[in-house]
């Protein structure tokens, strides 16, 4: 018998029935809900007289549209206010647990699940948000869905879907000094392209992955969608179990031992066959930066801005030409020469406590460059609290950073945190599309360390040449 992949095992464990040759009914263990992609789904439940099948398997929070400045002032944007109130009302009507605006557990939906121990190995997890892949770091099958599917999961606790293919991304060697998981995932996306993972679930493996903390692994899985894959996953191990132990919703006492023994079976068998395999050498990596307007347009700190004529395909050439123009760049320019206006540290990619510690280690004792605005937005209210207990907030504030409340913030600019037209930003987020952080804004994706160093210098520098004590 041929071996099974980690994905195959979880798929089989959740397969309820084959509806036809391509369509399978899959049970969903956890449905995460936020204010932006759910109101129409709840409305449709009401119109069709449907109930939420299992409210106890559903968790809601507010993150996308919530302001990150003084929350006591309320939500000024009338549309965001209405949307958040709609979620509050819907959760009450349908009996769903909500970590709301003033809840100490509020935060970005992909930060709070792991933080509470609600995200566990072997689960199926969905959310109306493409960065749901983050939860795959625990060896769960987690992916983003649209609003029609949000309604489907609310009403049935299942999805009717075809089985995706599998892709193995094997990372050879270890990450070198100054090289972060963000540099690695940006390189992977450059290698496979923004559509390279389409139709596939990625499993990341190899020495560098094994050596990573859970938070690092979340950064990797989080950006699977930027490589086109709906889900990315990593087999659970001792690191996973140690992270989960004693978390609020993690199994307790005898259940813990049972759970660990079941979780320990969740790995790809040695003879498992993947539909696609790619390898990447971690030891060759340099600090990565996005230069263009999609996350596969990546160069290293010491590279020059590419020429659109370097692209073979006409549509890619068009896209690169447009990107150069939008980003106000010329081929051959050095990326370290660009003057930065803003720095954003946060998001579901890089807004967890380790990210803030790593950035603070660089910022410590320095000042933000003149004429540059920098902000830190913790991924959750608990991350914020933890950072404050460790004094990280003071390090940032003393350097001239803005220290904010938790939310998605300038990763997508749905709240008041946006770039002005023409502003150039070093951002630890996940997308550099045109206008993503504000109409006319220019985004360069980097690691928290690179963003912190850029805030101090006013331009990008090679983090390996920066003297600091590691967190």
């Amino acid at each position, binding site marked *: 018998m041929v071996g099974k992949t980690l994905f195959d095992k979880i798929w089989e464990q959740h397969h309820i029935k084959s509806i036809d040759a391509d369509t399978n009914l899959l049970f969903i263990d956890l449905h995460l809900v936020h204010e932006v992609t759910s109101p129409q789904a709840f409305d449709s439940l009401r119109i069709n007289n449907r109930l939420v099948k299992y409210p106890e398997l559903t968790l809601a929070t507010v993150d996308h549209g919530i302001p990150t400045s003084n929350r006591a002032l309320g939500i000024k944007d009338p549309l965001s206010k209405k949307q958040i109130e709609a979620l509050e009302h819907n959760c009450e009507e349908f009996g769903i647990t909500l970590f709301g605006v003033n809840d100490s557990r509020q935060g970005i939906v992909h930060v709070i699940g792991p933080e509470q121990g609600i995200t566990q190995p072997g689960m199926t997890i969905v959310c109306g948000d493409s960065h749901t892949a983050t939860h795959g770091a625990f060896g769960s099958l987690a992916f983003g869905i*649209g609003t029609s599917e949000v309604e489907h999961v609310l009403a049935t*606790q299942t999805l009717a879907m075809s089985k995706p293919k599998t892709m193995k991304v094997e990372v050879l060697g270890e990450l070198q000094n100054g090289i972060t998981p963000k540099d690695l995932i940006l390189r992977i996306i450059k290698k496979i392209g923004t559509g390279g993972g389409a139709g596939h679930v990625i499993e990341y493996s190899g020495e560098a992955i094994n050596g990573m903390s859970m938070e690092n692994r979340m950064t990797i899985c989080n950006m699977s969608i930027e490589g086109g894959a709906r889900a990315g996953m990593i087999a659970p191990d001792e690191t996973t179990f140690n992270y989960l132990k004693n978390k609020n919703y993690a199994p307790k006492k005898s259940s813990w031992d049972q759970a660990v023994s079941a979780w320990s079976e969740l790995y790809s068998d040695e003879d498992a066959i993947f539909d696609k395999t790619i390898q990447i050498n971690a030891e060759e990596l340099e600090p990565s930066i996005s230069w263009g307007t999609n996350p596969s347009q990546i160069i290293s700190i010491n590279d020059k801005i590419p020429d659109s004529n370097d692209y073979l395909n006409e549509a890619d050439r068009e896209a690169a030409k447009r990107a150069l123009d939008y980003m106000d760049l010329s081929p051959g320019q050095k990326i370290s020469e660009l003057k930065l206006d803003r720095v954003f540290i946060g998001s579901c990619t890089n807004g967890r406590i380790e990210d803030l510690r790593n950035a603070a280690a660089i910022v410590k004792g320095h000042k933000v460059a003149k004429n540059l605005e920098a902000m830190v937005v913790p991924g959750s209210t608990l991350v914020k609290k933890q950072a404050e207990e460790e004094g990280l907030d003071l390090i940032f504030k003393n350097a001239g950073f803005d220290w904010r409340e938790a939310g998605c913030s300038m990763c997508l600019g749905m709240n008041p945190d946006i770039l002005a037209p023409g502003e150039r930003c070093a951002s630890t987020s996940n997308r550099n599309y045109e206008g993503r952080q504000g109409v006319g804004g220019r985004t360069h994706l980097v690691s928290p360390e690179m963003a912190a160093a850029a805030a101090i210098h006013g331009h990008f520098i090679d983090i390996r040449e920066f003297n600091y004590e590691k967190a």
Partner: protein
Amino acid sequence: MKKLNNFNSTMLPLKMSNIDTDQIMPKQFLKRVERSGYGQYLFHDWKKEKEFPLNNKIYSKAKVLIAGTNFGTGSSREHAPWGLQDWGFDAIISSKFADIFKLNSINIGLVPIETTEDNMNLLFRKVTSNPNTEIKISINDKSVTCEELEFDFVIDDFSQNRILNGIDKIDISLEYSDMIEDFKYNRSSWLPKLTD
């Protein structure tokens, strides 16, 4: 969901790869709680450029969008297909679609049709030389015809049947309620529950 079968139309070309859902439906319109009326916001920022094809009256009746590869990449916002459908599109043809976008589109009866780069180049050439070129799409036969060019496309029977008959997927899945309940009952006891 919208019911569709065979239709003829002109085409609107967007010859760029990796068009993301942030462009198709910018975030400021995601604050709305309504399900309808997104067509006016479609490609809101790109529409500010005069020469953008959506501004060209010659394409105003096109029900078919032809686009560069990896169309709909990025955010899972279903607001993107809502906007495209509300604008008047019934089908999109590209050499590749982003996964979530593709599923979202099928779920509302906006048909994503994947074909080869060669066929895409032919379609782009036809529409550039004559914007009135007609294309015929048959959901029933899973086929596309444009002058001498004919090709079949792949859509699973389940989705095809839903689009042909406008069937809501939830009703189908709810027929298995007993099986879903049995499944839930037999799950591992340690799995997280948000309420008792």
